[in-house]
């Protein structure tokens, strides 16, 4: 290492928008799940809130800077497949931002929240109210969303142990260990 500040130097990675939007989405999705059979319109308002959060995060993925940008973490499929093989072979590189699989997980989670939100909204229209296939689609998509949430948490746990860093804490305070071997980093 030729980094003068030493190996324990930490750098800002997740900006305030990324962190606030991440945890707001966690809270609204969890609350939407808990209110799925509640009387009144809480579930609907929570659904609109998730869509607003996803819209904001998507916009930030284009107009934000550094590690928040989709361009930073949506990588070509061959690169992602190679990374997956590296994980299995236990030779995966550490990424300061999202790793290739994590990046696609972000995209999948955003798309799933949108699909659950839109089918839920559809169910509240006069045209599709009470129509069984709309309800079943909404429920199936939300099951798929929760399966991906489980995979996301498993991936975060795996990568945290693998590279000896607490990624949940990093999403709270926004900072991660700098590591000069990791290649180019955003300022």
């Amino acid at each position: 290492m030729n980094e003068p500040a030493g190996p324990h130097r930490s750098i800002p990675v997740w900006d305030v928008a990324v962190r606030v939007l991440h945890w707001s989405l966690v809270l609204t999705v969890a609350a939407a799940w808990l209110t799925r059979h509640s009387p009144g319109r809480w579930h609907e308002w929570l659904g609109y809130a998730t869509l607003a959060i996803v819209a904001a995060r998507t916009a930030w993925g284009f107009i934000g800077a550094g590690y928040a940008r989709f361009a930073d973490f949506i990588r070509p499929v061959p690169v992602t497949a190679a990374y997956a093989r590296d994980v299995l072979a236990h030779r995966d590189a550490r990424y300061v931002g999202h790793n290739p699989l994590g990046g696609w997980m972000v995209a999948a989670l955003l798309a799933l929240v949108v699909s659950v939100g839109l089918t839920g909204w559809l169910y509240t229209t006069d045209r599709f109210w009470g129509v069984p296939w709309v309800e079943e689609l909404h429920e199936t998509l939300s099951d798929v969303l929760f399966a991906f949430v489980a995979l996301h948490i498993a991936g975060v746990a795996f990568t945290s142990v693998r590279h000896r860093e607490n990624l949940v804490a990093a999403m709270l305070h926004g900072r991660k260990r700098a590591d000069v071997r990791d290649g180019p980093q955003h300022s």
Partner: protein
Amino acid sequence: MSRRITNAALAAALSLVPFAMAGATGLATCDSGSPDTWQPQEKLTAMLKEKGWEIRNVKVDGGCYEVYALDEKKERVEAYFHPVTLERVETASE
């Protein structure tokens, strides 16, 4: 080492399993006994269509018939009916 990581990841994923369990909604319950004693669903839907309702779906929830429909004013309703008396049952604060 890598097995320990896999186990940690698996434990994290499994912690979500109780989240995926679901049951009756609890929006309304009917003390309706055995389903053999219930009036047929078709009788209820015929009765409601007579009133001008457009029936979208009928389910059984908490021992009641749960009806999704547009009522005679074309308003969206999710209404509960006692399967023996076919009387409307109030739902929790709506």
